[in-house]
C-alpha cells in the first residue's frame, strides 16, 4: 500500500522535461518533491505565477507571494507573474501539460466530483472546474475509499459533478488506474496489494487480468 508520498512519487513519473504543471492542494502538492534531478518542470499556480519555488525560509515570508492554497512560497529565476484572467487563459487554451488534483469521487467514465457536499460543505469550486474542463492530461490523486470505507471509484458520481469525462488516470494507495470504454482499468498494483483486494474496494467496473505489475519507481 502507498502512503501519500508514494502516491505523489507515482504521479511524478508522468512528468517530462519542459512540462508546465498545475498541482492542486493536498497530495498533489507533494508531487513537486519528486521532480527528477535535471528535469526542468515549471509549476503553475492559478493565482498568477509560473515557476513556483519552495516555501520561504522563516523570516522571509512575503504576504504578497502565495500559491493557490494561500501558502507563502517563493519564486525561482525565470518566474513570471500574471493576472487571474491570463492564468486561466493558459489553462483554457491547453498550455498546461499536466494537472494533478484531488477528488471525492471519480466515475468509470472519467467524471469527477470534488467541490461540494450538498447540505454539508459549502466551499466552492475555486479553479477546479476550469482546470478539468480544459487540461489535456488530468491525473487524480486520492484515497481509494472514503472515511466510511466506501469506494470513491464509482459507476457514477453521487456528488455534484466538477467536470465530465475528463480524468485520464487515478492514483490511490492501492494502485494506478486508467480508463477504457467499459470503465476503470487496473494498470499497476501498489506493493503488496492483490488485484482481488483492489476489486473488492472498487465499486465502478474494473478491468483486471490479475497479473498487473507492482508500481516501480525509477
Amino acid at each position, binding site marked *: 500500500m502507498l502512503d501519500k508520498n508514494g502516491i505523489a512519487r507515482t504521479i511524478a513519473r508522468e512528468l517530462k522535461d519542459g512540462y508546465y504543471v498545475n498541482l492542486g492542494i493536498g497530495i498533489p502538492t507533494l508531487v513537486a518533491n519528486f521532480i527528477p534531478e535535471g528535469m526542468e518542470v515549471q509549476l503553475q*499556480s*492559478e*493565482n*498568477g*505565477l509560473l515557476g513556483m519555488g*519552495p*516555501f*520561504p*525560509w*522563516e523570516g522571509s*515570508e*512575503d*504576504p*504578497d*507571494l*502565495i*500559491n*493557490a*492554497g*494561500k*501558502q*507563502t*512560497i517563493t*519564486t525561482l529565476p525565470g518566474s513570471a*507573474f*500574471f*493576472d*487571474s*484572467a491570463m*492564468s*486561466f*487563459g493558459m*489553462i*483554457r487554451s491547453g498550455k498546461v501539460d499536466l494537472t494533478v488534483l484531488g477528488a471525492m469521487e471519480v466515475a468509470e467514465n472519467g467524471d469527477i466530483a470534488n467541490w461540494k457536499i450538498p447540505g454539508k460543505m*459549502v*466551499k*466552492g*469550486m*475555486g*479553479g*477546479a*472546474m*476550469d482546470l478539468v*474542463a*480544459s487540461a489535456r492530461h488530468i491525473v487524480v490523486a486520492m484515497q481509494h475509499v472514503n472515511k466510511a470505507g466506501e469506494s470513491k471509484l464509482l459507476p457514477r458520481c453521487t456528488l*455534484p*459533478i*466538477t*467536470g*465530465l469525462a475528463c480524468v485520464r488516470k487515478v492514483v490511490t494507495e492501492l494502485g494506478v488506474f486508467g480508463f477504457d470504454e467499459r470503465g476503470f482499468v487496473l494498470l499497476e498494483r501498489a506493493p503488496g496489494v492483490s488485484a482481488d483486494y483492489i476489486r473488492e474496494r472498487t465499486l465502478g467496473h474494473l478491468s483486471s487480468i490479475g497479473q498487473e505489475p507492482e508500481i516501480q519507481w525509477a
Partner: protein
Amino acid sequence: MNKIYADADAAVADIRDGATLMLGGFGLCGIPEHCIAALVRTGVRDLTCISNNAGVDDFGIGLMLKGRQVRKMISSYVGENAEFERQLLSGELEVELIPQGTLATRCMAAGYGMPAIFTPAGVGTEVAEGKETRVFGGKTYLLEMAFHADFALVKAWKADRLGNLVFKATARNFNPLMAMAGKITIAEVEELVEPGDLDANAIHVPGIYVHRLVVGTHYEKRIEQRTVRTPNS
C-alpha cells in the same frame, strides 16, 4: 486632473445601499483592506460583492459579512469563513459560486468592452443550469455574461497621480481585471509616485481605468497560511 482622495473614507463615501462592488484579491493577498475598513465604517448595506473569496471571520470581506452589509456574494471559493457559512446555511446571505476562471474572465470581458464570453468550465455541472450553450469544434461551451460593477475596489503596489498602476507578485490576481471593469474604480496603493517615475513599459493598468486613488499606510497584509522551509525539509 485630481484623482487623489484624502483617505479611504472619502473615496468610498458615495457608495450607497444596494451597490454592486468588485473587490480584488486572492484569499487575503492583494485585498483593498483600507477601503473595506472604510466601508465597514460607513455601514452601507445590501451590497452585492464580486470577489474571488469572502475573507476570513475577522479580516477582509469577513468584516463586512459580520456587519450584515452584504446581501449577495459572487465568489469561487469561500471555505475559510465560518460566519459566511452560517449566513449561507440560514438563508441570510445569497451566494453564487462560479468557477474561478469564469469569474476572472467575466471581469476581463467588462474591461475589454465585450458583453459575454464562452467557456467550457462548468459544462455538465450545476453551474450550467439555465445557461445558453454552444458547440465550437465539437466541444460545448457556456455563455457567461460580463460582470458590471458600480465600483471596483482594488489594491495596487504603486501608482502615479494619473492612476497608472503596478502590482506586486501574486497580489496582482484579480486586481487589474476588476480595475478595468468598474464604472468607478478606486485604487488604494502603498506608494504614490510622480508621473514618469513608473516605467511606461511596465504599467499593468493604464490610468484611464482608474478614477480614484488612495494612499494606504500601515498595511496589515495578513498571511492565511504561513508556510516555511526548515533546514531539515
